[in-house]
């Protein structure tokens, strides 16, 4: 907390110094930074003009440690609203660290806290709170949509929506005030009409915003794609197949994946966290139970859920107890096995959804080499199509005569097409979500939700209450919520609106 209120000069590396790069930007912000920093520069800083590039050496103990470019931004025309000095130094990590350490030798300079430059900008009214939040989102955004919304907030698009909500609420307050102080002036009939109109307008605005909050934000900021299923269904095989490496430990022993394993996958420029979970089964082993609990939790918050089922080892009672509506894609492994047909059909019937039948495990390389046309997924293909090597669970000597002779087997989709199909499903769901114009910032989402719910209660109250003072008291409670979103409306503002729009006074 202290850091937020001291007056020291702050310094930080602004361009990320996690790895070596050609040039790194170091930012210094505060009062009298030129005087304080002069001792480390060969350039006479009191002669430099703002917003011009200069070349200088950085000097430590009469020794040049780097040859740099620098630019000065005089207050208040800088990002933070203070004096800001930007140094463009050579980007070797060691070099950057050495320079930062050098400046921090001064008592008056310290490392900036995370976000402190923005905090100072906020404090000096360079940006509004909504803008600051947008900035935070921009800096942390790891996909295209969040990035776009970050910019929208800075440009004030979302701000415009809030502004319109603000105006509508302000008008609502005005019409309530008319009912008390100015009833004689405006007349009861006109005052009631104004009130009805204002209520409808506000309701449409807050409902509009509320709908935008309904989408789970975490889906878009760090969308997770989760593989779930009962123990030993082949989840890890699927997971490894998608990642193309032996990331999860695969074995025939149930409960091998006791906690979840995660990695990142990129689909159409969007980053997803891809999680392999512990299999769900009734277990009495403490560690495994914890793992199962976490799996269910992850599944609850997942953006996209893939369920892998093993037709031979499905615990149907348990399956029915899971929330299958959360599942976006069902994959049935071992579909190429002998006697799998009846089991597969049974599953299909129970799930009553599109089910992908596949042969896990398979050989990744093999898959890349032989993409086969789409007819593969469309036509009924027998188990003899199996192209991958036989996995541990697979019965060797794959072609069972009964399969060929029997009724048409499940449509089996093999490794690389399954991957394509999976990517397509994830991406289309993501697109659908992104089109809903979701509000990302938690603070705003929370207040919109609260405001909306309080509004509903308020509306309920209005139905049975004729005491205007009670209504206004409840309205100000609603206002307390909404002010977190749009700021405070002063009484003088309200009175100003009233005097402007209504003929008040006898």
């Amino acid at each position: 907390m202290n850091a937020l209120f001291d007056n020291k000069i702050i310094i930080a590396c602004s361009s990320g110094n996690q790895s070596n790069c050609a040039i790194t930007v170091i930012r210094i912000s505060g009062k009298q930074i030129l005087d304080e920093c002069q001792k480390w520069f060969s350039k006479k800083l009191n002669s430099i003009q703002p917003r011009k590039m200069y070349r200088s050496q950085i000097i430590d103990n009469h020794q040049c440690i780097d040859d740099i470019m620098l630019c000065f931004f005089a207050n208040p025309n800088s990002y933070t609203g203070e004096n800001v000095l930007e140094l463009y130094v050579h980007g070797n990590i060691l070099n950057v660290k050495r320079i930062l350490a050098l400046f921090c030798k001064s008592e008056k300079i310290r490392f900036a806290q995370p976000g402190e430059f923005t905090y100072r900008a906020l404090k000096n009214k360079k940006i509004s709170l909504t803008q600051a939040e947008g900035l935070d989102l921009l800096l942390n955004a790891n996909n295209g949509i969040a990035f776009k919304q970050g910019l929208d907030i800075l440009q004030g698009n979302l701000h415009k929506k809030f502004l319109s909500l603000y105006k509508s609420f302000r008008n609502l307050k005005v019409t309530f005030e008319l009912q008390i102080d100015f009833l004689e002036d405006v007349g009861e009939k006109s005052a009631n009409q104004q009130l009805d109109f204002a209520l409808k307008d506000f309701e449409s605005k807050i409902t509009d915003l509320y709908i935008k909050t309904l989408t789970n934000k975490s889906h878009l900021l760090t969308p997770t794609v989760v593989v779930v299923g009962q123990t030993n269904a082949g989840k890890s095989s699927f997971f490894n197949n998608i990642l193309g490496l032996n990331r999860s430990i695969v074995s025939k022993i149930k409960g091998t994946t006791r906690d979840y394993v995660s990695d990142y996958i990129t689909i159409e420029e969007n980053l997803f966290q891809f999680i392999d979970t512990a299999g769900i089964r009734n277990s009495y082993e403490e560690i495994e139970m914890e793992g199962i609990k976490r799996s269910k939790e992850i599944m609850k918050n997942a953006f996209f859920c893939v369920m892998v089922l093993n037709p031979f080892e499905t615990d149907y009672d348990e399956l029915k107890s899971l929330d299958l509506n959360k599942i976006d894609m069902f994959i049935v492994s071992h579909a190429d096995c002998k006697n799998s047909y009846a089991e597969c059909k049974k599953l299909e019937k129970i799930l009553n959804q599109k089910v992908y039948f596949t042969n896990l495990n398979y050989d990744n390389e093999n898959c890349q080499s032989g993409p086969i046309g789409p007819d593969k997924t469309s036509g009924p293909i027998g188990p003899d199509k199996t192209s991958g090597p036989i996995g541990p669970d697979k019965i060797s000597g794959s072609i069972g005569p009964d399969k060929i002779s029997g009724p048409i087997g499940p449509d089996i989709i093999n490794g690389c097409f399954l991957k394509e199909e999976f990517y397509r499903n994830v991406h289309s769901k993501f697109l659908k979500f992104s089109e809903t114009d979701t509000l990302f910032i938690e603070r705003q989402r929370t207040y919109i939700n609260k405001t909306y719910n309080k509004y509903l209660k308020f509306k309920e109250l209005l139905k049975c209450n004729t005491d205007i003072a009670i209504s206004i008291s409840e309205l100000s409670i609603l206002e307390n919520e909404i002010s977190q979103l749009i700021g405070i409306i002063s009484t003088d503002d309200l009175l100003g609106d009233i005097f402007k729009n209504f003929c008040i006074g006898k």
Partner: protein
Amino acid sequence: MEKSTFDIVVVGAGHAGIEAAWMVGNIGLKVALINLPGVQIAETPCNPAIGGVGKGQLVREIDAMGGLMGKITDLSAIHYKVLNESKGYAVQSTRVQVDKERYSVFAEKFLRENKNISIISAKVVKINYIAADCFEIRLENNDLISSKAAIVCTGTFLNGKLHIGAEQIPGGVFGCDRSDSLISICPVIEASKRFKTGTPARICKSSINWSKLEKQNSEPTAQNFHILHNDFERFNQQITCYLTRTNQRTMEIIRRNRNIAPLYNGQIKGIGPRYCPSIEDKAFRYQDRNEHHIFLEMEGHELDSVYPNGISTSLPKEVQNEFIHSIVGLEDAQILKYGYAVEYDVVDPTVLNFGLGHKDFHGLYFAGQINGTSGYEEAAAQGVISGINASLKILNKAPIIFSRNDCYLGVLIEDIITNDRDEPYRLFTARAENRLFIREDNTINRMHCYREKLGLHQDIDQFQNNYINYFNLLEEFAESYFFKSNDLIMHKFNNNGYGVIDARLSLSELLKRAHLDPVKTLSQEISDQLVKIDYKIIKSVAISQKYRGYITKANNEFENLNKLDALKINWKLIAENERISNECRQRIIKTKPESFSQLRRINGIRPATIAYVATMYN
């Protein structure tokens, strides 16, 4: 040249001045009330009505503090109205029309009866601030008065100028002298700007065609203001008011004469209140509206004049004649006195503290319209506040600071001294955050703690103590009295329209039922108990029960903010803090806020500063 000495001198005997002098006299100090010759004491130069939405509450608060206004209003009342009657008890207010002559007569009578008060008819030419708490006041006849404090209540008289069309007459009220500019009287302080107000023409009663007009009778259910008066007693014969309206012709006449309207041709520079527009304002600002209400109100039983409420104007006389004659019922109206606007000097009230004393010149107080307010009630309220606090200071007692959480006096005082406004300030209930609690019915409950601090033992103190005792008794009764769910009670509930009773129910819970009028219900229950309790107390207990839950809910919601608001702050420390923007610091230095509540209400203070100060003090 004579010399005399008083504890306090009050300059001006309008609504602020008389209340200030009255409070000082009652507290027991010697006070000189100096009135400009030719000006009536407690004159009502505009609408002869006291009270109104929010203002009714204020008058009752003044009364509970021992002020004069409620008492003399009741005694001179000729028409009562309860406003917002259908909107619920919390926002109901009383408005009373007074006989303006009787109002002045009663005011003077009470003042003269108090031996501590000396009324001096003279013009003040100098208020010399010699040192802190040491003044010398020079009158026009060169008499000198020494005092420890001076309360300046000059109303619209300070450098006043009247406008009727192109005519410009020096004066504070029509037909009266004015006072010179503030700096020439009191060299330590200068007026900051000029405000404007106006009044309509007065019409001869007998020249109005009443038969065409809508009647408005005085309401017998309106309660008197003064707590020692019987609630519904009437001291004068009640009169009827009448309603008429402007029409298209009226408004066209006004619009046609824009270039000779002093308000619209640049002759008047002072700023008038938007909530009290002249008929010119209505004509030009609401071009599409031609019908505006006009209430015709008698100015008194013995007076032949009628006040046409709604057509205040400063148009030339011939235009006033023309447009008034275009109005239904006023076709043959004879004008007794033409409408006019008055421009006057006001001070920047942010130099004042919560007792209305100057922050730098100790003992110098300002109250009433000079502080940029409008309305008799607002002026009277300031008279009470300044009279009390000037006295307490001389007696070396702690000041009384009214809080905006429990009274309109508190709302008013904080609003006045926190911002230098660009239009006259009027009290609206919208300015109070705590409307469910600041009601007319519970005035004594709210004000008793303040009145007690004066340590007086007068009739009203006796009354208030009794009231509080009975209130507590009845409240306890309402909470501890239960109805059983049996046939007899069910029958009673059914008969009285109380609704169903399927379990034990307290009287308090019954009062909260939305479909019941709590006051009628409690009255009924009390009479069933065969006891007689003062109606005021029954009413207040019933309404308090009804609102209690909502008030608690609101208090919980705003608990954090209320806690912050109550914080006393050191403005000097904040003003020195370089992390606060220079602009905000300048505003803080000017206003010198004493509390967080005041700080956050300073105009133009940035949210960042408020948030920052909040963290400083957390």
